[in-house]
């Protein structure tokens, strides 16, 4: 059995008096696309934010390749975070910066790369995502679909090993949705990153997913492949997929 890349063990987290995660267990393996589904407000984003360190768990552990994240040395933790990238629900692009500056930002502030290399990388990603020609524009001047692609370009510009997608298709029409999904699939194959996707797009997302986990009431209620889901007779799962109110 392979060691999971990221493993949640009994992770609990509450904000104030309201618990969000209650003893959550989940394994994420290298190179896979795992999709987390679940009702709104069940803590799917919180789950992703635990991985990237924006939120700290109250109890339980998160293992990175078998080692607890909290016990990693500062250098190791930093190098782990450097491999991560996060695509936000609302893109979180900076309005006051041009598209080029937005995409270049993760490279610029680290100041590891010389300027011409940054330029090369940014233009390469922009070309791959069909964004050439809008370098000098600002996010507010773009359509929703374009902005999404810019956000994706920004997430991919650092050559991440793990990409966390927080509802990458909210606010897009079905055609664009499909495009984003195939984009994720395509680039995942191309760059071989591990993708964790939080999504509501059932059943389309099942075509993208290699594994699916369902989050409900703070725990993972179901974890398995697409086939497992269709075969399963779990009531909660089926109700959710069919859109019934539980």
């Amino acid at each position, binding site marked *: 059995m392979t060691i999971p890349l990221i493993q949640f063990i009994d992770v609990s987290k509450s904000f104030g008096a309201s618990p969000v995660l209650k003893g959550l267990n989940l394994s994420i393996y290298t190179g896979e696309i795992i999709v987390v589904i679940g009702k709104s407000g069940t803590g799917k984003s919180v789950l992703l934010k635990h991985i990237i360190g*924006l939120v700290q768990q109250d109890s339980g552990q998160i293992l990175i390749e078998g080692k607890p994240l909290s016990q990693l040395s500062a250098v190791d933790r*930093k190098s782990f975070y*450097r491999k991560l990238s*996060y695509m*936000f*629900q*609302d893109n*979180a*692009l900076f309005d006051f910066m041009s598209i080029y500056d937005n995409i270049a930002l993760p490279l610029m*502030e680290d100041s590891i790369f010389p300027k011409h290399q940054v330029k090369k990388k940014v233009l390469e990603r922009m070309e791959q995502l069909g964004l050439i020609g809008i370098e000098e524009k600002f996010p507010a001047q773009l359509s929703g679909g374009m902005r999404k692609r810019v956000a994706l370009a920004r997430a991919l510009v650092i050559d991440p090993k793990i990409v966390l997608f927080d509802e990458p298709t909210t606010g897009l029409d079905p055609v664009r949705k499909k495009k984003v999904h195939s984009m994720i699939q395509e680039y995942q194959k191309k760059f071989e990153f591990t993708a964790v996707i939080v999504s509501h797009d059932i059943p389309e997302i099942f075509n993208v997913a290699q594994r699916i986990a369902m989050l409900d009431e703070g725990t993972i209620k179901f974890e398995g492949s697409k086939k497992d889901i269709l075969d399963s007779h779990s009531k909660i799962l089926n109700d959710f997929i069919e859109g019934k109110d539980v």
Partner: protein
Amino acid sequence: MLIKSIEKFGKKILSLLESMGRAILFFLTGMMHIFTLPVQFAKIIDQTWFIGSKSIFVIILTGLFTGMVLGLQGYYSLVKVGSEAALGAAVALTLISELGPVFTAIMVTARAGSSMAAEIGIMRISEQIDALKTMHINPVRFLFSPRIIAAVISFPLLTALFDVVGIIGGFISGSIMLGINQHVYMDTVIQSIKIHDINLGFYKAFAFAVVTTTICCYRGYYTHLYSGFGARGVSLSTTNAVVQSCISIFVFDYIITFFWI
């Protein structure tokens, strides 16, 4: 009943202390990151443009009318005791050590401070601040440090502009409209102003720059803690930022004047 109200009071004190500590830490982090390399030149220029250059027109207008009303009001007060010749001194002294820095700070807070709070607040609720963190960028350094430098550059310069325009305004209403000899006016201005008063005005401008920028950025940055997520939260933070900045301008004005004189 009694215990409950004491409990409530205690909680309030605790949360007050907490937010005070948070504000001070926020301020110190921002100040510290002014000195971490690389210097964020482009952002400082951008912010100076926003805080300083875009305020020129407002400052000229308010400065001119403040000076004119001082000239008018001062003339009719001074003429009663027969010393309208001292009008220049009265206008210049009030402007340079008091009204100049205070009015400039209030105008700039209304113009730039409010939008700082709103902009950073929106960045908070649309997860842009989280996005910075995921890119290993310190959001306080990225957002607050360039703004405080730009404010420290802009406030004193705008104050100087306000003072000069105000003195001209006083000249317009006192000399041109009410007929005080223009040489007497300018002479009393020059005679009455001492380096001491000018320094006081500039110290105030510096202090107001630091205080208002910190309050506005802090309110925006912690929008989610005080006012919640959402457009409502941002508008509340912006209002709070402006009101608290204006109050602190007056409080600091008193404190600085008290210790200076």
